[in-house]
């Protein structure tokens, strides 16, 4: 139902009144999804709808369309649980923005947010190269979510700058980083074992296999973040990365804390059942021992295997979440705050990939007028 902006609150009240929850409902935060392209709107809406069932919230989706007549129209709805008697959980406002009205979006959102509650902004799609709307949108945000899996390697550098710039204001969360959580957890779990941990400082070679993301790219942003995380956690020197390439395999050589080299090989593996750019396997080698973490035939099941003298590592298989945007958003919303490890990793990833990242297009402008 399309409603004038001034009628949004009234229409939402009417909707609640027509349900069993007319005596009141909980709200924890405002979650805004700004779609850089209207093509992103359906998936953004889908993700918001699922997140809204987990967290009582007001979701606002914004999509901009080309037009000569500037206008913003709204639709309101309630997010209802599909299986629990269609119980309403959260409320939703969709904004359709036409033409020059794009510039009015920040002010409109201020008016439509539930006051006195946190505001989280999800910038859906690629990061704009230059768009003052982005700056104005995030001005009142507590956390801004991006998805670096949708970006190319050079955007890691831009994200890194953004993190620095945002310090003291909002925090930045990355859905791609949230996706890495289980890989980090199970990599760490390997080395909780004291016998394995003894080798950690002397890793000789790491192989990171991932599905292709962009033709010709040396690795996906997710693989780069994973390698950068290892480098940060294990104290490898990221200031002077050495790169080489052999066919589909790209090799990064870094200096360990003890002055010895460690190589990280990035290998592309085509696999249709997992998302582009996602990790498929990580192998660690040191002192004749080998630890392997891999997806089974079921892409949602991660397994591990380790062998070598003195190691007793029973096999382990665990199910991981479906790595969709709703799940990742939800994971970030459980701890909507600055993540120092992410920031350090992002800076390291930007440094490491700078020599192999594609150059920025000349005169790039992804945002349009604002």
């Amino acid at each position, binding site marked *: 139902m399309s409603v004038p902006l001034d009628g949004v609150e009234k229409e939402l009240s009417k909707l609640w009144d027509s349900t069993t929850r007319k005596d009141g409902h909980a709200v924890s935060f405002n979650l805004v999804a700004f779609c850089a392209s209207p093509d992103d709107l359906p998936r953004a809406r889908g993700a918001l709808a699922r997140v809204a069932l987990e967290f009582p919230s007001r979701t606002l989706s914004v999509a901009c369309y080309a037009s000569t007549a500037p206008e913003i129209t709204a639709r309101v709805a309630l997010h209802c649980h599909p299986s629990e008697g269609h119980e309403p959980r959260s409320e939703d406002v969709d904004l359709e923005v036409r033409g020059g009205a794009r510039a009015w979006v920040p002010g409109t959102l201020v008016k439509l947010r539930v006051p006195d509650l946190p505001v989280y902004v999800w910038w859906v799609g690629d990061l704009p190269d230059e768009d003052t709307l982005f700056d104005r949108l995030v001005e009142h945000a507590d956390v801004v979510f991006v998805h670096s899996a949708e970006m190319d390697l050079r955007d890691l550098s831009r994200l890194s700058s953004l993190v620095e710039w945002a310090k003291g204001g909002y925090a930045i969360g990355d859905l791609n980083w949230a996706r890495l959580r289980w890989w*980090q957890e199970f990599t*760490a779990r390997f080395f909780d074992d004291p016998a394995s941990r003894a080798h*950690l400082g002397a890793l000789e070679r790491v192989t990171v296999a991932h599905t292709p993301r962009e033709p010709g790219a040396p690795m996906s942003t997710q693989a780069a973040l994973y390698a950068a995380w290892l480098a940060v956690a294990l104290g490898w020197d990221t200031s002077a990365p050495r790169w080489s390439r052999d066919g589909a395999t790209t090799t990064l050589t870094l200096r360990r804390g003890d002055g010895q080299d460690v190589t990280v090989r990035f290998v592309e593996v085509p696999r249709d059942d997992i998302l582009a750019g996602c990790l498929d396997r990580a192998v660690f080698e040191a002192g004749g021992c080998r630890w392997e973490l891999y997806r089974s035939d079921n892409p949602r099941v991660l397994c591990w295997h380790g062998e070598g003298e003195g190691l*007793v590592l029973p096999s382990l298989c665990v199910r991981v979440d479906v790595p969709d945007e709703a799940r990742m958003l939800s994971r970030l919303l459980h*701890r909507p705050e600055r993540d120092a490890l992410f920031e350090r990793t992002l800076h390291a990833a930007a440094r490491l990939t700078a020599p192999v990242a594609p150059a920025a297009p000349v005169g790039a402008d992804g945002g349009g007028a604002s």
Partner: protein
Amino acid sequence: MNDNPLREGIASDRIPDPCTVVIFGASGDLTKRKLMPALYNLAVSRLLPPGFSVLGVARRPKPDEVFRAEQHEGVSQFSRRKPVEEVLWNDFAQGVGYVQGSFDDAATYVSLRERLEHLDRTRNTRGNRVFYLSTPPAEFSGIVRGLAGAGLIADRKDTSRFSRVVLEKPFGVDLHSAEALDTDLHQVLSESQLYRIDHYLGKEAVQNMLAFRFGNAIFEPLWNRAHIDHVQITVAEDIGVEGRGKFYEKAGTLRDIVQNHLIQLLALAAMEAPVAFDANAVRDEKVKVLRALRPLSREDVYRYTVRGQYHPGGVSGKAVPGYREEPDVSPTSRTETFCAFKFYVDNWRWHGVPFYIRAGKRLARRITDVSVHFKAVPHRLFADSPAEDNVLALRIQPDEGITLRFASKVPGPRNLLRPVNMEFRYGAAFGGSGPEAYERLLLDVMLGEATLFTRSDEVRTSWEHFSPILDGWREGPEPEPYAAGTWGPASAEALLTRDGRRWRRL
């Protein structure tokens, strides 16, 4: 794990060290319905360590494969996640085995030790064991002695490995038996190695009582005798004894519900803020409440307690038999299926505030509810309106949530007030079903986190109050009859009405 640099800063759940859970009485219903589904769900939730193993111990001979198949069937039927994910089950089941033996035979513990040592070698369980005694309480002391005799209990000072023992209630049937059990257990185990399960404490809504009270600044200033008139706690079931007549004849409602679950709710409602959210700090505060409960003299037992027994009636539109007609129940039984109490907590905060508590079977509906009734306004400005107190109710089950009742003006020219309820329901707000109580509690045992388990002095102090009540009842009249499907005997109503109050309409 702390010196693993890969752990630094990652958002990970706490994972226990590799260990083996040994379940005594593994052929029983609890293993099939609760324990194994809980462990499987922990595996699905990625919360178990690598090499995690389970050994069932029971009298009947059976090979490992048969035990695994039985448990697979149990998990398929009772797990909150269905269907069973075979790839995960197969991985989990690699660590599942069975040891046959009698609990009073030393050879059982020798076999068990050999199996555990084998698991240490092949699955790297590092000598860490959790012994879960899913057996009748009469077996507890013997099993613990058997474990000690076989060298299966690690010294509590040995930080390289752990041995923990989990006990299911009841922890004694009166003060004397509870103390005797404690003495037996403490000959072998330190208190820090003992985990007495009260599954109520594993419920999200019960834990939310602490979150609500101590995570919000606005309620605590009102949470005392200056503002609160009285507190009511109800643990009501609409079911009967469900084939457990033999057990219930010996237990009764006081031993089954009140002395443990209900007294825990009272302690959580009345306790002071702990200095930290850790096991000893929280339990210290609960014990202080129990110590402050005013003891009931023999005369008080008749004045401040009510016991009832259900007679035939109707529940959910169906006729149900009376307690004495239930299987395995004596036709002249004096066992109570309902009881109600009026307690005072004699401390600075609660002086003069009565706590009315009640529990029973075959009541009007299944509900667990803690309600705080605030004092009336000092001066009634709105004389035309009925006086209604503010009530803050914490619903534990079903539909966990919080309700606040306050007065609101009815629109119109008159100053007419009506009570309205502001409701918050966890399920509607946050959705999804959380982990089962046993998942949380089993994980906590493996992690060595004892906050949600009952400490020895809590059990003892509770019995110090309830043993004299049981003695008084034994010498008193029969339980008062009440029709199944009602809220208990008339005396339960009178317990409040003579104080000018009434039970909340639930």
